[in-house]
């Protein structure tokens, strides 16, 4: 690719544009390349690995971030992690893994760093014009692609609640992504807000390093230890899916009885959703810290009052530091809202089968789901499907029609519910069902269509 003036739109022919060189983007590039596509991957930062790279200036990593899904459920299906790694690798290992994936498959040569996509738009029917804004300040460039895969993830824009009186609060208020190495918690009175994985992990960090740690969770969550019955919890539960349904229920209940009774003992609300609706919070250290008082459970914050935080149950505390582990909002700024099915009611995309634009055949989003298994294998199968789809729509109209039909029928099943109760929840899918749907989509693409 050469440099272009801002006026000339360079036509890249059948090439595909991938936006983002994090885990999802890298997997997309690899699968597109494997299917014979030219690929240009644009990364706004100067490094690959996305959220897993602490050098990324927007990195959301907090101290001691580890995977919450186990290795076998998290690794890319056709490029396993080294089997001497621990069950739950660290963020540093995750970055090493992605770097090794990139170099193993020669992906780096397709990545354009320091290149933010300011805008994409449909042109010539199914083609896209992409406006690239180089970080260096030189003029924007315009290129045309046969297809665009958005792989920017959804851990970039902090979801920041605001409470009455917060402006006048005298202590420090930070989002989890601003924590850095955790030294700001040491010896302090810390309040962690948010009952999800990051909130629980950070509360465990503060339980050890802060002088005091309170943890405010707005609602019931599913708390699971990282191991159940001596096996990684996600594996132990997924494994039961190979059993008959009645037995699975019995075995699942037996595995979860202990964690359930323990959460009840700790006075935690029953979660207001069934356990398959949302990823459980996976941290067995948390309930031990609650059980030894090093984490004090609190309900939602009612308001700030000077140096005090008042909770809805009337209790108060005077934290030095408030950490908002309240997650992120998905934001796909460069893509016109109507192409993502975003309407006025909700900022959340309504994608077909959680990946295809409802308006444009050659626009897809990879990795915009939260599921019980790691997102990497899901992105692998998503981009596997997308790559095959892009191949087939050119040469086999009949199979393409079958495929569209299958996608639409799978989409009905996974319509985004607007009753989602947290940003994360609104992206939630049941991994087993979603993967089964993906499997049917892929089968439609790969097998001869039934006449």
């Amino acid at each position, binding site marked *: 690719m050469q440099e272009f003036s801002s006026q000339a739109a360079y036509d890249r022919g059948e090439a595909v544009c991938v936006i983002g060189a994090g885990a999802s983007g890298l997997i997309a590039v690899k699968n597109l390349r*494997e299917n014979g596509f030219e690929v240009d991957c644009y990364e706004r930062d100067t490094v690959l690995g996305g959220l897993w790279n602490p050098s990324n200036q927007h990195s959301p990593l907090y101290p001691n971030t580890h995977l919450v899904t186990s290795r*076998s*459920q998290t690794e890319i*299906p*056709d*490029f*396993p992690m*080294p*089997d*001497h790694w621990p069950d739950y690798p660290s963020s540093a290992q995750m970055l090493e893994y992605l770097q*090794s994936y990139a*170099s*193993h*498959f*020669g992906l780096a040569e397709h990545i354009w760093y320091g290149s933010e996509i300011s805008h994409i738009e449909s042109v010539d029917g199914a083609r896209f014009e992409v406006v690239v804004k180089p970080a260096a300040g030189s003029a924007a460039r315009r290129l045309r692609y046969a297809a665009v895969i958005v792989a920017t993830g959804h851990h970039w824009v902090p979801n920041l609640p605001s409470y009455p009186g917060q402006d006048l609060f005298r202590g420090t208020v930070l989002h989890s992504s601003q924590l850095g190495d955790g030294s700001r918690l040491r010896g302090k009175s810390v309040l962690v807000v948010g009952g999800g994985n990051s909130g629980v992990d950070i509360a465990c960090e503060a339980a050890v390093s802060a002088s005091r740690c309170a943890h405010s969770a707005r609602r019931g969550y599913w708390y699971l230890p990282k191991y159940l019955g001596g096996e990684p919890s996600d*594996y132990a539960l*997924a*494994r039961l*899916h*190979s059993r008959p349904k009645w037995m699975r229920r019995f075995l699942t209940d037996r595995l979860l009885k202990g964690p359930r009774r323990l959460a009840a003992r700790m006075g935690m609300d029953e979660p207001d959703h069934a356990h398959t609706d949302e990823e459980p919070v996976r941290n067995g250290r948390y309930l031990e810290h609650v059980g030894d008082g090093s984490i004090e459970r609190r309900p939602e914050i009612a308001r700030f009052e000077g140096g005090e935080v008042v909770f809805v149950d009337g209790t108060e505390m005077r934290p030095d530091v408030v950490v908002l582990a309240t997650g992120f909002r998905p934001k796909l700024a460069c893509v016109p809202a109507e192409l993502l099915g975003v309407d006025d009611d909700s900022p959340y995309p309504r994608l077909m089968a959680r990946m295809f634009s409802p308006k444009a055949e050659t626009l897809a989003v990879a990795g915009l789901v939260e599921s019980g*298994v790691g997102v990497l*294998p899901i992105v692998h*199968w998503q981009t*596997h499907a997308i790559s095959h789809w892009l191949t087939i729509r050119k040469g086999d109209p009949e199979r393409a029609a079958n495929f569209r039909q299958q996608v639409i029928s799978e989409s009905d099943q996974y319509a985004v519910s607007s009753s989602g109760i947290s940003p994360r929840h609104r992206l939630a899918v049941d991994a087993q069902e979603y*993967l089964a749907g*993906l*499997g049917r989509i*892929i089968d439609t693409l790969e097998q001869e269509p039934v006449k």
Partner: protein
Amino acid sequence: MSLQVWVRRTRSPEPAAVKREVNVLEPADLLDVDAKDDPDASPVLCCSGEPTGAAAFGPLWLKRIAASGRCAAAVSVRGQGGTPAAPGGAEAYAHDVVQAAIGMPRQAVLIGHGTGAGWCALAAARYPAAALVLVAPRKLPKRLPRPVGEPPVMFAVTEAEAQSKEAQAVTAAYGISPLTFPGGADEVFKGQNAEGLLDAILSWLNRKED
């Protein structure tokens, strides 16, 4: 690998991890040969069914592959050579091959010999090999799975075995005919026949990568 096959695998226990013996020879390691290191050429990972594992490829194979400009490696699966034994069977051997493959600097060519040919065929269904080469395959799995990433496949048998059941199975599975080489199946590691066979494989690889 289909999604369904992968899902099944994520619900089965992973074979026990072992510290695997992998012998590696880089073109740059060769002092006596003037090897042209070709960074675009895929590295090669060899696996044999012989109990000695990596050592079976002797002084000939790794050196000749490295001399052709490719990074050359051979792995001993569990129980072979310097790799400790551990339970598992063919699935676990394939796991060992895949684990060795991900440790290669680039997408690797898998060359399997004897029983190792079957393990490499299984491994190529999990890992997108740059190419798959089956040499004198023995005891192949009943159903040869479709390799991922559609790598070119080559297979070589002795002239005597050109019509064997194994050869027919490979032909049926991959739609390719065998390259035959003279001599016995146990003559692939040294001697003139071995050199000829290896050169045929390397030139096929070069053709495929052009």
